[in-house]
Structure formats: structure tokens, C-alpha cells
């Protein structure tokens, strides 16, 4: 993404590796190298109160190097690293088991499209805030009547001369109740569908914005209903052209699908491998899991997981070689959702009745998490484009199959 330096010699890269290693050694606090608990993720934002001072220290250190967004240009708060340097940085972070300094929809989704479609003033204003974790963003996409058919969205945005006026409702807005700003799809022309959508930004503290968390089957409430009543938005907050938002929206979805897939839907660095969980709860006989049918299915799952990781790596190498791999985002989304649902189900199955607890002291903390992870994973094939919508994309855009005539 960044205009990194040209091809680097292996000597230069080795130097970068040893400098990076030394810097991380000196700047990553010990606590930030321990496995993350459930609520240890750092999302930043105006209202963020660090649970531990080390979280702030680690975020500030990484942000000072631009390494929360390693490949963004330095003038926007990025690290300006080449892809090879970024690979080394990620290797070294993994090596010391460092926690992510910052989780952010700004980093994963909004920043990349703003770099491409934003004007200079917008990039200068918003990108460094994202890099430093100062502003937490949420995504105003889905509406009650516009889920898979996203372009059917109705949230109205009227031109009032010196400002825009927004009225409508969003749903499934991740962490809207904790976000500072929203990037939002709005309808600026009601006579046409895709060509009447614009991409706009506004402050969630604006008068007329209201959020209500939605309780999910997993017990958590990561999503909200979000209501807009006569919300005034400055005109300079429009990104790209008026009625030109659909192109940006689709590009952002590509980043969203890629980031969801790359993360493998949680699982977390500290999580035990599934076969170790199974060994503990099922038992071992002659070095093999006692339940041979479950063993075979775990093996099949691990092979799928490995095949997926190899394919992500192949796509990265292809992209580096200049091939267009944008078509792979939908494919990765489908595969990653399948994989995580399979994994969380296998874990619940392997744990037997120990995975059937909801709360209280009768189960360990890990046992309580297992069924919730399985329940949460059902959303993986719905959020960010359902599996069905992504299969449509593969069939039509990749395979060239046509619509009914």
C-alpha cells in the first residue's frame, strides 16, 4: 500500500529484522506478551480507559513508530514499511507473542478506502487519529430492510445547502455504542438504486444519534441498532463523489472480508489447539484420540485449516508479484466462516457436557467460553456478506456465470 523503498537486499532486511527485534525487546511490556483474556483487547477511542497502564504504553510505543498501521505512508501516521519489512515485523511480533497494540475498524476497513478515495484534507485529519487509536470508528452499513441486499438501503441524506441532514436507521452496527465516529452509507438519490448511494462520515456525539445494543444468542452484545433523527453533517464529510458511494462501499467490503478471513474469526493466539482440547476431554489410547471418528474429523478440519493458510500465503505472493487477487476475498470469506464454525463445533463436541455450561462456578472459564464461541460463530456466515452472497460473487464475477435473462 505504501510507496515502500524498492526491492531490498537480504542484508538490508536482516538489519531491519535485528533492529526491530531489539526495539520490540525494549518497548513491548512483559504483560503485553501474555495471552489475552476475553476483555483485554484494546480498541482505543475517546472514552477508552486502559485496564492496565501497559496497554497504553504499548499502544503509544507502536503508534510512535507508525507500526499500528505498518504499511501506511508516514505522512498519515503509518510506518511506511515495504511488504517484506512488514512480514518481518509481524514475524517478530509473533515471536515474542505480543498482543495486538490496537484493534480497529479504522485500520482494517475505513483507512484503506480513505487512502484510496479520500481527499488530502480528509486523509490528513482522520488517518493519524486512527493510527494512534484516538478515534474509534463504527460501520453504518446494514439496515432492517437492507441486509444481503445492501444497496436497498434507505437512510436518507438530504442536501440542506450548507450541510447534509440524515434520517434513518442502521442495524448490526458493531460496537456503535462505544464508537466515536461512523462511516456510513446513505441514500442521496431515491430514483436509482446503486447510483444513489453516498459514503459519509460523522461524529456519533452529533445530536440525533441514538444506539441500542442487541443481545445475541451467545449472551454478548457486540452489535447495535443505530437511529439517526435530523443529524446535521458538514458537507466536507462526504467521501468521494455524491452518489458515488457504492464503489467505495464494495471496496470496503473487500477489505472487511479479507480482514475477517485473515483473523480466522478470533480463536486467539492463546487458544489451545483443538487436538489438545480433545486429548484432555476425550482421552488417548495408543497415542491416538480414543474417539476415532472425532479424530478423523479433527484431522480433516486441521487439513482444511492448513490448506486455507497456504492459500492466503499464495494470494499474498501473487499480489506481491503484481497479480490481481481481489476476486479471492469472497472465496476467503466463505472458507473462513466454514472453518470457524467447524472448529467451534468440534471443540464443543470434544468437551462433551463440560461445554454445556452457561455461567457460575460449576465450569472453568474456558469451558464457559466454548459454547459461546460456537454460538457466536453462527454469525460468521452472515456478517460481512452471507455465505450465499459471497458464493453469488464467486459464481458471477469469478466464474462468469450469468443471471437469469
Amino acid at each position, binding site marked *: 500500500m505504501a510507496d515502500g523503498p524498492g526491492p531490498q537486499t537480504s542484508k538490508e532486511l536482516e538489519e531491519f529484522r535485528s533492529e526491530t527485534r531489539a526495539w520490540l525487546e525494549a518497548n513491548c511490556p512483559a504483560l503485553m506478551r501474555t495471552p489475552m483474556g476475553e476483555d483485554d483487547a484494546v480498541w482505543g477511542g475517546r472514552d477508552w480507559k486502559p485496564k492496565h497502564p501497559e496497554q497504553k504504553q504499548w499502544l503509544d510505543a507502536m503508534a510512535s513508530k507508525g507500526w499500528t498501521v505498518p504499511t501506511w505512508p508516514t505522512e498519515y501516521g503509518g510506518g511506511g514499511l515495504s511488504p517484506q519489512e512488514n512480514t518481518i515485523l509481524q514475524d517478530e511480533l509473533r515471536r515474542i507473542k505480543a498482543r495486538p497494540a490496537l484493534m480497529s475498524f479504522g485500520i482494517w476497513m475505513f483507512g484503506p478506502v480513505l487512502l484510496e478515495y479520500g481527499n488530502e484534507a480528509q486523509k490528513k485529519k482522520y488517518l493519524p487519529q486512527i493510527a494512534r487509536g484516538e478515534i474509534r470508528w463504527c460501520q453504518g452499513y446494514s439496515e432492517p430492510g437492507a441486509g444481503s441486499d445492501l444497496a436497498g438501503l434507505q437512510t436518507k441524506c438530504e442536501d440542506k445547502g450548507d450541510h447534509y441532514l440524515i434520517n434513518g436507521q442502521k442495524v448490526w452496527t458493531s460496537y456503535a455504542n462505544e464508537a466515536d465516529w461512523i462511516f456510513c452509507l446513505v441514500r442521496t438519490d431515491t430514483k436509482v438504486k446503486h447510483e444513489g448511494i453516498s459514503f459519509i462520515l460523522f461524529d456519533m456525539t452529533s445530536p440525533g444519534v441514538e444506539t441500542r445494543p442487541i443481545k445475541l444468542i451467545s449472551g454478548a452484545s457486540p452489535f447495535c441498532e443505530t437511529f439517526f433523527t435530523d443529524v446535521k453533517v458538514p458537507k466536507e464529510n462526504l467521501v468521494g463523489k455524491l452518489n458515488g458511494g457504492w464503489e467505495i462501499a464494495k471496496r470496503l467490503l473487500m477489505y472487511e472480508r479479507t480482514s475477517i478471513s485473515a483473523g480466522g474469526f478470533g480463536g486467539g493466539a492463546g487458544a489451545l489447539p483443538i487436538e*489438545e482440547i480433545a486429548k484432555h476431554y476425550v482421552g488417548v489410547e495408543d497415542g491416538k484420540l480414543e474417539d476415532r471418528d472425532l479424530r478423523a474429523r479433527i*484431522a480433516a478440519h486441521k487439513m482444511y485449516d492448513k490448506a486455507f493458510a497456504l492459500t492466503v500465503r499464495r494470494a499474498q505472493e501473487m499480489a506481491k508479484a503484481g497479480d490481481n487477487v481481489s476476486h479471492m476475498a469472497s*472465496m476467503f470469506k*466463505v472458507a473462513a466462516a466454514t472453518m470457524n464454525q467447524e472448529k467451534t463445533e468440534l471443540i464443543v463436541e470434544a468437551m462433551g457436557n463440560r461445554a454445556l455450561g452457561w455461567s457460575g462456578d460449576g465450569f472453568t472459564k474456558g469451558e464457559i467460553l466454548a459454547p459461546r464461541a460456537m454460538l457466536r460463530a453462527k454469525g460468521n456466515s452472515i456478517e460481512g456478506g452471507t455465505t450465499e452472497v459471497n458464493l453469488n460473487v464467486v459464481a458471477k464475477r469469478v*466464474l462468469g456465470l450469468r443471471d437469469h435473462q
Partner: protein
Amino acid sequence: MFTLTEEHDMLRDAARAFVQEKMPTAHLRAVRESKPDGFDRALWKEMSDLGWAGILIPEEHGGAALGYVGMGLVLEECGRTLAPSPLHSTALVGASALILGGTAAQKAEWLPKIAAGEAVVALAIDESAHHAPEKIKLDAKGRALTGEKKYVADGHVADLLIVAARDGGAVTLFLVPARADGVTITPLKTLDSRGAADIAFNGAKAEPLGGPELVDQVLDRARIGLAAEMLGQATQAFETTSEYLKTRTQFGQLIGSFQALQHRAAKMFVELELTRSCVLAALAALDENRNDVAEHASLAKARAGETLHLVSNEMVQMHGGIGMTDAADPGLYLKRARVAEALYGSASYHRDRYAALNNF
């Protein structure tokens, strides 16, 4: 890991051009009708003249030394049209065994003949209905082989047999000329028209080849190479089917515009992309001499088996009645698929092995 050199690109392009022109599926049909050997010797000579029989063989023995990635590319192209030849049995499996385990004399005797397309080699492993190298019983005491091997690929046309047998302790490999005394070869007519053989040994004199570690090394090369051929088969089966979806009309619509078929096609595409990564990574692991070849081999063979199984079935189903006729190609892909899925271990065998390699 996945980046091809210019030399590899050229090799693949040459293989594609040759196979598409001289060995389309019509060639397999012709072999089925008129060549009991299961392949066309004149074409095998041409393939050898192009250097394919010697892709793995060092230059000093008359080969081109282009490595396993290069071999995989050619096998994939051959898989696309189901081109029958001893490329896998001889140029990959036979050559690998001799290169890795052969003495100087054994290499000097056989490698130039393999590279020139003058000797066919077959690896005799299985002794029952299933691939189970750990259960091999064939007796090699006193370097004389006694016992039976089943479904030896290219065993019916081999000049040299490489036989897995037990001399008291661990399983090792032995070389036996196919026409030696004490060797009885019974040709089999097979589903894929390529043929194979059951082979009985009755005191046949054999030379040892390499040590116990060679068995797994050679088998893993056989698995990875076959997975590359299967990737080619599955890719072509998918592309042919995809084209059919774009031309066949029912209810006044192209059948490819029906979502039920679109989603199944898209799922096949995802499976193919994942399998391609596994096969390419396994071939690269061989060339890079990595220590996780066994894991890569089981991953590639299992994934290729599952993917080819799915795609070959869908190829018949999506072609409808036409897919059931002998005149159309889906049946050819289905038949070769089932043979390739079983050889050197089914997906189920390799899932079990993958679990064992990962200690569970």
C-alpha cells in the same frame, strides 16, 4: 514458495501445447480400444525426447534436473486430458527411488535408460485391497523375494520393479528386473484403461536399494506427484463443467444461471483453489528439502482426493443424461478419479496419517 521461475513457465507452456494437441481425451479413447499396454509407446518416446522422462534426473545421467515443481507442472497438464503414460511411475517414482537410494552402479545402469524413455519402472507396494505400507509382509530373506503384490501401477509394462519387502526387520526397497526368474506378472484390465498388474514373487533374486527411510521418501514423492496429476484432472473437469453450464439451456435459461448450480460451482472453485495451494506447497517442500514433507504429502494427497471426488461426481451430475454416456468425457474423468484416489493411500488413510504426524 509459490512463485514459478521462467524455466518452469516455459516447461508448463510446452507441456500444455503438446498434451492438448497430441493427447486430448480422444487419445485415451484410442488407447482404450487398441493399446493393451495402456499407453502409446511412440508418444512416450516423444515425451522423453522433450526431456520429461528426465525432469528429475541429474544432467550427468542424461536428465534435465528441473526438480519436483517442474515435474508437478507436467503431471498437472497430463492430468488435464487424462493423458496416459509412464511419466508418474517411471520418471517420478522410479527415478526418485534411484536418485535417493541407488548406488553409483545402480544409478549409472538405470537413470540414463529412464531419461531416454527406454525403461519403464514400477513400484510394487500394496499387498491387499488397501494401501498399508506399514503391514508389508513380502519376504526378502537372503535377497530372494517371496510373496505377492497387488495392483502395481504400470506393473504390466515394467522393465524394472522396485519392490517393498522385509528382510527380517524394517521394510526396505529392492530392485528386480521384471523379466527375472521367479517373477510372475498377471496384467489387470482396469477402470481407467491404463492397466496394472498383480505380481507374484517366488524366490526372485533382488538387489537392495537404500535403507528403511527410503520407503517413506519414495511413497511421499509418489503421493505428491499423483496429487499434481489429480489437480490437473479436477481443474479440467471443473472447467469443462463450467463451460457446459454456460451453454446448456433448459426452461429457456442457461442452466448456469440457476443459483442451485451457481453455488455448487462456486464451492468447487473454492475447494480447487485450496487444493492447488496444498499441491504447490508440497512440490516446493520437496525441492526445498524441508523436514515437513510427510505432512505436506498427506495433506496434498487427501485434499486432491476429496476435491477430485467431488468434482468428478458433479461433472456427471451437471452434465445430466449426457454425463452418463460413454461418448461424453465425464465418465473418463470419473473412472480415472477413483483409481487415483485409491493409489498410495485414500483421503481416509492420509487423514489418519496426518493425525499421527501431529501426535493425536
